[in-house]
């Protein structure tokens, strides 16, 4: 029996905002416990929430980045359950009318669907000791975006690619720093298996506690075979929550917080619905950054780069930006690209983008040779100086003055009768020896291309 896995991911992303979702407490992490709190995020008696406009904007932006439909009317709901990390013992979230619906994340070869994105408040953090637990409410109330995927993934690789792509998109969008180690991006998996060809899904198991994207892959690489093996032994898979233990390399059944949650959702009376107008949507669209994939395609079409080269350049946003500044107005973007890729992280070096453009122009105009260009580049890299200055200071400018060159050519022809004879006899390679002579006579400054042409012409005419 062949089985296939069906995987869906629930990703929680902490939004990069200055303040929390409902109050002015700062969202920066790393502070002493309970120092970024106020009556509102502590759920004190009598407090009320006021929605952070930037959190709403960033959620809509995220939806646009992955092709979601933005709900023009969106509302807030209370999700009721008791837990020590919950200041109010209800979480303000979105139930039936979230900010974003649909959407997809593109990975190599396929699109992985997204069901919805909604905005909610994060919960506090607990620390566990021998017989007690301690709660730090600094994190409580941080704006949290929940992205629910369709169950489109079929392998741990799919999941890995989805998370990598999603993270890149959100970072590019300035929505979040997505650092999983800091808890800015958290992921739960829902995974089931079914016989290949069966339409119905198998029982899904929820996996929690993966602390990195590769951890998600490892967890799935364990869980999928575990389920298949269990079914193979005639066992049933039950809907349950399991905890991934990265050290042990296994999932274990969790003792759940309570049996089936009854969240008793109802509309949040303290918060007003959000409506998004055409004008607002257009304004947010204007603020959309170009995503890596789109940029890659554009570099290929706009600058004539190879897919490979474009791929290298877009790997880092700053590098791509450096290249585009260097290539702006240059007739030879490919050459510019080659120089950009000549050393790693050139955008962090002293080299200025426009200097690369100038370097390519100097070589293409024959002012210096390609070989000389490499020397100039080395100085540019070390000093940050522009090529014009370096060429001048080192007196590298090739001699291209026809009069001078004609003179050197005549001299070479006159002094190398053997090579001349060889050339006339059909040995084209003998020309190179004559070019070498002219280079010696000109102290290496002659433009070898022009010299070659000139010699050939002179020899034809004699």
């Amino acid at each position: 029996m062949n089985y296939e896995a069906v995987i869906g991911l629930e990703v929680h992303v902490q939004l990069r905002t200055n303040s929390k979702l409902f109050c002015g407490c700062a969202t920066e992490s790393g502070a002493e416990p309970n120092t970024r709190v106020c009556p509102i995020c502590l759920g004190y008696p009598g407090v009320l929430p006021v929605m952070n406009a930037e959190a709403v904007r960033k959620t809509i932006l995220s939806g646009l980045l992955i092709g979601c439909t933005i709900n023009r009317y969106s509302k807030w709901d209370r999700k009721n359950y008791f837990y020590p990390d919950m200041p109010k013992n209800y979480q303000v979230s979105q139930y039936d009318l979230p900010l974003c619906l649909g959407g997809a994340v593109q990975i190599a070869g396929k699109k992985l669907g997204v069901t919805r994105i909604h905005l909610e408040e994060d919960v506090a953090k607990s620390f566990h000791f021998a017989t007690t637990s301690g709660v730090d409410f600094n994190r409580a109330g941080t704006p949290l975006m929940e992205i629910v995927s369709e169950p489109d993934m079929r392998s741990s690789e799919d999941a890995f690619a989805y998370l990598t792509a999603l993270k890149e998109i959100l970072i590019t969008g300035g929505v979040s720093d997505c650092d999983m180690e800091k808890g800015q991006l958290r992921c739960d998996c829902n995974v089931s298996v079914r016989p290949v060809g069966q339409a119905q899904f198998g029982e899904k198991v929820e996996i929690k506690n993966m602390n990195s994207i590769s951890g998600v892959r490892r967890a799935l690489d364990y869980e999928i075979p575990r389920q298949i093996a269990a079914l193979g032994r005639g066992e049933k898979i039950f809907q349950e929550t399991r905890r991934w233990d990265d050290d042990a390399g296994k999932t274990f059944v969790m003792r759940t917080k309570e049996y089936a949650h009854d969240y008793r959702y109802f509309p949040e009376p303290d918060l007003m619905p959000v409506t998004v107008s055409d004008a607002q949507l257009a304004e947010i669209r204007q603020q959309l950054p170009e995503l890596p994939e789109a940029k890659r395609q554009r570099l290929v079409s706009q600058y004539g780069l190879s897919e490979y080269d474009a791929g290298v350049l877009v790997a880092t946003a700053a590098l791509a930006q450096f290249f585009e500044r260097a290539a702006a107005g240059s007739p030879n973007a490919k050459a510019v690209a080659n120089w950009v890729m000549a050393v790693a992280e050139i955008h962090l070096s002293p080299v200025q983008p426009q200097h690369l453009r100038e370097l390519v122009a100097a070589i293409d105009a024959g002012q210096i040779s390609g070989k000389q260009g490499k020397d100039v580049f080395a100085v540019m890299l070390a000093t940050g100086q522009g090529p014009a200055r370096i060429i001048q200071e080192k007196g590298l400018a090739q001699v291209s003055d026809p009069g001078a060159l004609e003179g050197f050519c005549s001299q070479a022809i006159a002094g190398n009768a053997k090579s001349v004879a060889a050339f006339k006899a059909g040995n084209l390679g003998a020309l190179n020896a004559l070019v070498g002579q002219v280079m010696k006579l000109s102290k290496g400054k002659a433009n070898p291309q022009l010299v070659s042409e000139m010699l050939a012409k002179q020899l034809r005419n004699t």
Partner: protein
Amino acid sequence: MSLHTQTIIELRDQLRRGEVSAREVTQAVLDRIQAVDDRLKAYLWLNPDDALAQADASDRGRKDQPLAGIPIAIKDVLNVIGQPCTCGSKILHGHTAVYDATVIRQLRAAGAVLLGRTNMDEFAMGSSTENSSWGVTRNPWDLERIPGGSSGGSAAAVAGHEAIAALGSDTGGSIRQPAALTSCVGLKPTYGLVSRFGLVAFASSLDQVGPFTKTVADAALLLGVIAGHDPLDSTSVPAPVPDYQEKLNAGVRGLRIGLPKEYFIPGMDREVEAAVRAAIRQLTHLGAEVVEISLPHTDYAVAVYYLIATAEASANLARFDGVRYGARVRGADVLETYAKTRGAGFGPEVKRRIILGTYALSAGYHDAYYLRAQKVRTLIRRDFEQAFQKCDVIVAPTTPTPAFKIGERVDDPLQMYLCDIFTISVNLAGNCGLSLPCGFTAQPKLPIGLQLIGPAFAEPTLLRVAQAYEQATPWHTERPAL
């Protein structure tokens, strides 16, 4: 002199003319509290030194603020920084407020002396103040009877002259009903007019803070201080606040008074009915036109209220779990700690409502109870909208009976809920409502209240009608023989 029996406006004039000091006024009220509160039990907390210090500061400072030097009592449901805030509940025993409610900041800015904290039904759930964990407050007109609820302490304090005015809260009638039963003026503002930030929430879509005063003019003044948009309250309406005192004496000529036929029910106390009908006749003598109107869904209001209010309350009270504040009963684990803390900390009425509200929201019942109630609520709102096309103000009794005896209804929650039958719809629709004295029963002499109901933000009209009636009648001059 009897400063403590005077009104805000009377005292304010004397204070401004320098005829009396703020300290004298506060001292007079404190003396009165000392004299009668062991019988009335309106106050849960009082710090005389703190009150006098505020009065002294007022004497040293500005005299032009609207409430400069006026001692005002605060229902124990509003946060006042540094003061206990128990909402009449054991579960908040020992809790100290760490911030000021917005209305408190407004009172301070207006120069008021924050007097003390008054008794209430636990978490504002009740109609008699018998549900307080700290004992029941007595009606100044008959110490064997309830003062109403949930703001019974504030009402008794004003009626018993233990405060010049007070703040209360109204979710289903908790200002208007006690005002009616104790012969003061009680006003529930339009939902969204007064900030709820710092008001411990009972039912978020129904709660409002409002004034208890001795006269309509005082109510207009106090409303003007606490009304206004608050950026800390998302449900607070960003509209400018009118001058409530401006057209107060414009009279009722040309106004149409609506009489809802569904509000004059069999089983209503005959004296209450008689007093209210007499009041209506008085209003017509003053020039108002009476129009019969219908509020067809009246019969469903109590049912709607007891599903919506309890559902919202079940969520609002979930935060009382012994983790961050309040009293805790330690259990073997987290679950037990929650359950024991809440089981021990909440009184029976609160538990009853949490259970009903939780049930109404729970899986399988949400649509049939909570959702259906919200739909019928829309119909009740429409009833009022349609009625207000035919009239400017609706007139009705505030309560079906005068104050009943302490203990008379505690064992019958449903009977208790029906006390609110005339006031509840106003909260459901979000409209404004006011109760003012319109007479007394014969034997014993118990106050009867007249309710005026207005469309959203029609407080100026409400106050104008109330003022005309009050000034043409003697009720506001009566005092309990305490």
